[in-house]
């Protein structure tokens, strides 16, 4: 176990010191462009998911059916997540060693994993019956809990992303 942990750090050390990663960190324009895109794409991804969470929690768009919000939000949110993921991966590779050993990064990754589980539960447990509970507008407590967790955890992810910079 310890051996595996050491080798991941070593791998990250190697990645950070490749010519590619060093060149990326030294790029005047490309680095800030990737950095800025990572942040701006949060509005497409997390921003739109929060709108759906708001609707499920009845904090916003109370007259709009959940399905309607969901179907309008997803075609933008999914490419948004793809952009955040790709730019985030690039930023990670450029600073792999310092990021991997960063506590906030680890909290952020753990929280992202839990958000994935959270979304999967919604997808498999509540989405199939969405039409039924939407008809009566009685959102199941479980679905509301999922929306609340999503709302809270995304805030944690963003806060950790910001705090990472103060530890690196």
């Amino acid at each position, binding site marked *: 176990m310890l051996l595996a942990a050491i080798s991941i750090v070593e791998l990250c050390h190697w990645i950070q010191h490749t010519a590619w990663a*060093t060149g990326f*960190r*030294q*790029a*005047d*324009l490309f*680095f*800030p462009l990737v*950095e800025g895109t990572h942040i701006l794409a949060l509005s497409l991804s997390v921003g739109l998911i929060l709108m759906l969470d708001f609707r499920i929690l009845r904090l916003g768009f109370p007259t709009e059916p959940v399905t309607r919000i969901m179907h309008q939000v997803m075609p933008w949110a999914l490419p948004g997540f793809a952009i955040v993921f790709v730019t985030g991966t690039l930023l990670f590779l450029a*600073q792999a060693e*310092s990021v991997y050993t960063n*506590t906030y990064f680890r909290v952020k990754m753990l929280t992202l994993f839990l958000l994935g589980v959270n979304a999967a539960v919604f997808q498999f447990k509540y989405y199939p019956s969405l039409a039924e509970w939407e008809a009566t507008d009685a959102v199941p407590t479980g679905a509301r809990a999922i929306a609340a967790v999503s709302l809270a955890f995304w805030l944690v992810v963003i806060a950790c992303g910001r*705090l*990472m*910079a*103060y*530890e*690196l």
Partner: protein
Amino acid sequence: MKLKLLALGISLLCAFPVIAHHSFAMFELTKDVTYEGTVLEYRWENPHTHIILKVDEGAADPSTAGTWDIEGGATSIMGRQGWTRSTFKAGDHAKLIAHPMKDGVTKGASLFYAVMPDGKRLYHDIARPKGEGGASSTK
């Protein structure tokens, strides 16, 4: 329990040294300290450039003795002030004026300017000392 978590959170926040892309909130911007010594590492990179500087025990200001991580800006910001990837290299002598961390413990500081061998100042960004024109040193 909650109090313990809060205490843990605060101590974690305080313990960390400097680095990636962040504001200047953790630096004492009103303090200009002179760090003079040998460059151990000159990291010309984004999001922040770093100069790792070793200040000897016999320094004019004894409180600066030790190894410091003096942090600059992004390469594009420093490039506009005349910095390049070869401004310093390991082994060079350097005189850096910087704002130390507020915690007074972490050996990190925010670069203000370097005094080059010819006496000219190489500023980190558009900030200038108060009363010398240009933008104020308060960022």
